[in-house]
Every structure is written in C-alpha cells, then in structure tokens.
C-alpha cells in the first residue's frame, strides 16, 4: 500500500488522466443506460465534476475543489489554467477563420452588451439589497461579470475583503450557472450556429462557463464561443474600475 501511495504521489498528472477517464466512462454509461442518451455524457461528467469539486471543498476546506485532496492533485493540474487555455486554443483547429471574421461585429457588439447587462444588473441587485457605497456597488457589479473582474476591480478601488470575497462568490456562481443552463436552453435561444456561439461567448463572458456549457451542448461550437469569451474578462477589468465606477459616482 505504501508503495502504491508513493507511485500515486509521484505521478499526479497521470493519476488525473486515469480519474477523468473513469469519470467519463461512468458518465457515458449513465447517459446511455439510465437517461436513454437524453442528456449527453459530457454534460453529466461536467456536472459530476462540479459535485466532486463541492465535496473536495467540503472535506478539506481548501479552494481547489477535489484537487485539494492530496492523491487527486493531478486533476488540479489537468484542469488548471495552462492545460485549459492550451486545449481551448487547440479547438481553433475546427474553426474557420472566414466564419469568425464574418461574425466579428456581432461578437464585439455582444461583448459590450454582455458586460453592460451583467454589471448593471449586479449593481442594481446590490443596491436593492442595501449597499450604497459606490466602491462596494462597483465591486459587486464587477463580480457579476466574472470572478476575476470582481477582485481586480475591488483591489483597484480599495474595497473591503468581505466585499471582494462576495464578488468572487458571485462570479463563481455565474460560471456554474452558465455551465448548467447552456445545454438546457441552447435550442430555445437559437444557439446553434458558429455565429450565434460567438455572440453567446461575448454575452456570457465567463470563458470556463461558456466553454463547459458549449462542450455539453455541441463541441463544434466551442472554438467560436471561446474566441470572444476570452476578451470579456480583459475588457471588464478595463471598464469596471474606471468608466463604470465614474458613472456610479455620478449617479449616487
């Protein structure tokens, strides 16, 4: 047993490959046999991943989900930003440059609308909740954009750590909500073509959520959604602590 633990400990990433493989196998089995393929196996696997992430946090109190349990730390490497971004870039293999260029305007328009909708509704909810300080309102609104825009804005404006934590929480909930809602509502909102996927990526912004949601909907759409979504966080970090903060101080 000691020897096995030593092997596991030394080969984290390989253990991660094995674990995700087993999880995918189980999810595909569930999808086929219990759900008659009504929900794709990858959607179930991503959802089960979130459940594992919850239990990881529950048992260890850490912030990296299941990866905080020592023998599973390879899952954290596999799901970390390096492999995630590398694999997202590789999906461009299936995308056509011409289609991206054709839908470029729609993608940019949706980026602007997306940031506005998320920021404004976040600020309004916080205002109704009783927050009146412009720094707090702006940080919470930024958190509604993504869990990176929130803390970047909060740090730039000098928000309290309590409000920053709240903005990270809101951003994480957003990622999870987009992941779960996308495959459910994709058909209803007309999310079927590369162009609409580019608009969707710009609108929703959270690149993890958009990528995971589209992967569960139709993997062919992933590169189109990802190519716009990756600009959202940067644009949010640019606008929220500057122009948007200024507008809030004018309004209050």
């Amino acid at each position, binding site marked *: 047993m000691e020897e096995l633990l030593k092997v596991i400990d030394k080969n984290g990433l390989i253990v*991660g490959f094995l674990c*995700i493989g087993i999880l995918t196998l189980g999810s595909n089995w569930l999808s086929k046999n219990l759900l008659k393929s009504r929900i794709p196996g990858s959607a179930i*696997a*991503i959802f*089960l*991943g979130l*459940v594992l*992430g919850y239990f*990881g*946090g529950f048992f260890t109190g850490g*912030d990296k989900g299941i990866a905080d349990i020592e023998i599973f730390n390879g899952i954290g490497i*596999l*799901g970390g930003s390096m*492999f995630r*971004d*590398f*694999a997202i*870039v*590789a*999906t*461009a*293999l299936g995308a056509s*440059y011409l289609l*991206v260029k054709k839908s470029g305007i*729609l993608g940019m*328009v949706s980026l602007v*609308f997306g940031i506005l*909708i*998320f920021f404004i*509704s976040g600020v309004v*909810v916080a205002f109704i*909740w009783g927050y009146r300080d412009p720094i707090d309102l702006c940080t919470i609104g930024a*958190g*509604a954009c993504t869990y*990176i825009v929130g803390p970047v804005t909060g740090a730039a404006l000098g928000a309290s750590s309590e409000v920053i*934590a*709240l903005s*990270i*929480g809101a*951003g*994480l*909930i957003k990622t999870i*909500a*987009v992941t779960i*809602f996308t495959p459910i509502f994709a058909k209803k*909102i*007309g*999310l079927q073509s590369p162009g609409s996927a580019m*608009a969707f990526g710009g*609108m929703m912004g959270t690149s*993890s959520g958009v*990528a995971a949601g589209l992967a569960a909907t139709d*993997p062919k759409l*992933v590169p189109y959604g990802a*190519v716009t979504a*990756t*600009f959202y966080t*940067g*644009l949010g970090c*640019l606008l929220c602590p500057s122009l948007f903060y200024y507008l809030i101080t004018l309004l209050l």
Partner: protein
Amino acid sequence: MIIYGLALLSFSYLLGQWLGELLGRILGINSNVGGVGFAMLILMLLKELFERKGWWKEESIQGIDFWNKMYIPVVIAMAASLNVKSAISSGNLAILVGILPVVLGFLFFPFLLKRFKQ
C-alpha cells in the same frame, strides 16, 4: 511528424499569450487581455497559410487534434477543481448576483441575435 503540429500549437499559444500580456500592459491593467483569443486567431491564420502552401500534413495535424479532443476531459477536470463549496456558501446575495444576470442574459440573447443577424 506529430511534434511539428504540437510545436505549431505551442508557438501560437505562446505568441497569443504574449500579445495578451502586452495589450494588458498598454491598457494599464495588470491582466492578460484576450491572450487565448489572439492565440486562436493566430492558429487559424497559420492553418489557412499552411493549407495554401501545402504544408498541412495529416500526421502533424494529429499533434494539434489530440489536444483539441482532450478539451472536454480538461473541462471536466477544471469543474472538479473549482471552489464550488465556497461559491454555494458565500451567501444569498452572491447567489442572486451570480444567477439573476445570467437569466437576463439568456432572455436578452435571442433579441441580440435577431437584431444583428444579417
């Protein structure tokens, strides 16, 4: 050679990330702006170029295609290493601020598509 494709993917990735960092610096924010998006555009452009030149060989494509197909497993691993517990327990306001705008986004999305579709 598979490594050629993989090296091309790595080149696009690194160049894109570098551009993202530079753009972030120019805009005065301490963050990468669209690095992954730039990398994807670079890879798409290189693919067009290589296809035209006849350098786009089946075996080197496999080096990129492996990571293209590893995408969903990586996303599953990412979901499993998210801080789901703290997200759910960070309070009612965080849940409301996290979900309500997403619902609005889904409601607004069809209008955006209709308005801007040529």
